[in-house]
């Protein structure tokens, strides 16, 4: 594939369809400027600021943009909030739709046959693959991203984190907890 993609790039550049400097910019953007730390800052803000959380519930696109994250594959964001009785999980069974501005590009498993097949049918089994077991009484809602709406899970704030500031809280927010295949971490003892 290495050689084939290089050949493709050469042809498209020679024909003037793509600017090599634009390719470098695109690669840099997705390796350094967007990633799950963006989403973690959104979640941490929601945990400490009730007004922001309320805004996130009503209009996640605008609330997230207020922190500087917006754009491609995040044009229509919806935040779904976990609670003791309700757990949310996000999948795209038809392709790989994922909220790029807040989570970056998806991990391999998110795009895999295993996840896309099983998340909608056996979410508890998928959670077990991530080492997560929820109480039997917890309802599980799976969101299949079939349109241009992109979902961000707001995980529950871990207990014992009352004294932490926003930055320390953001460090507890894992990528998987914002997809719904994990829970936010607990602070190191």
């Amino acid at each position, binding site marked *: 594939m290495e050689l084939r993609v290089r050949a*493709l790039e050469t042809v498209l550049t020679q024909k003037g369809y793509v600017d090599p400097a634009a390719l470098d910019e695109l690669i840099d953007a997705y390796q350094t400027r967007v990633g799950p730390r963006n989403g973690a800052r959104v979640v941490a803000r929601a945990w400490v600021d009730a007004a922001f959380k309320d805004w996130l519930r009503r209009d996640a696109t605008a609330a997230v943009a207020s922190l500087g994250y917006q754009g491609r594959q995040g044009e229509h964001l919806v935040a779904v909030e976990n609670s003791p009785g309700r757990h949310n999980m996000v999948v795209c069974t038809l392709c790989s739709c994922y909220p790029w501005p807040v989570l970056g590009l998806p991990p391999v498993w998110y795009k895999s046959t295993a996840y896309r097949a099983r998340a909608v049918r056996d979410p508890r089994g998928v959670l077990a693959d991530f080492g997560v077991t929820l109480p039997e009484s917890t*309802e599980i809602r799976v969101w299949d991203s079939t349109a241009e709406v992109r979902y961000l899970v707001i995980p529950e704030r871990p207990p014992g984190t009352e004294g932490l500031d926003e930055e320390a809280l953001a460090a507890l927010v894992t990528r998987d907890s914002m997809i719904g295949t994990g829970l936010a971490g607990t602070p190191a003892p």
Partner: protein
Amino acid sequence: MTYRSHAELGGLPVDLAVVPEPEGDPFHAPWEPRAHALTIAMGATGVWNLDMLRSVRETLPDYRQRSYYEIWYGALVALLERHGLATADELTAGAAQGPARPVPRVLDAGQVWPMLRKGAPTLRPASRSARFAVGDRVRTSAVPATGHTRLPAYARGRVGIVECLRGAHVYPDAHAAGLGEAPEWLYAVVFTAAELWGEDAAAGQSVAIDLWEPYLEPA
């Protein structure tokens, strides 16, 4: 005409574990970020739209044998050849052998970040009022797809409840077929696990799917 999407994976009874992966570089080979960037840069030329691209990807005959970015590469090559922008010979040789065809736009480096920040919203003004309201029972179409669609096979012919209205959005079935944006109302519809998978399904589980109005009938 039969349309065969190989991307209909939801609910397939596969016996495969999901393998977690640490956060970090989302790419796993040097060619992957380049294939990704080439796809976005060529998309920016405006020769095709995202729904056409998805349609080409999901109909690649060996879709399920390809890695994710191999699917991206395969679809990009197919579109280049289909639109006469490059030939198979050129891509094999790794050198242009004929003149370029004009394209509407070429993305330059300074436009990249503004373009990514702007995105491509699909919300459009509604030309008529919504047919369904929150709480309505709706049944999805059971008719097999004849082209690109975003109504998953596992949710065809099923009854769900409208949870919310998301406004009118570009309708992918029309957009992929080159019929324009043809905006339609979009709804989040919730289905119980029992409705989707049968009475043996676990209680307390549901799936919400974003569905366009033409997929739905009153139930």
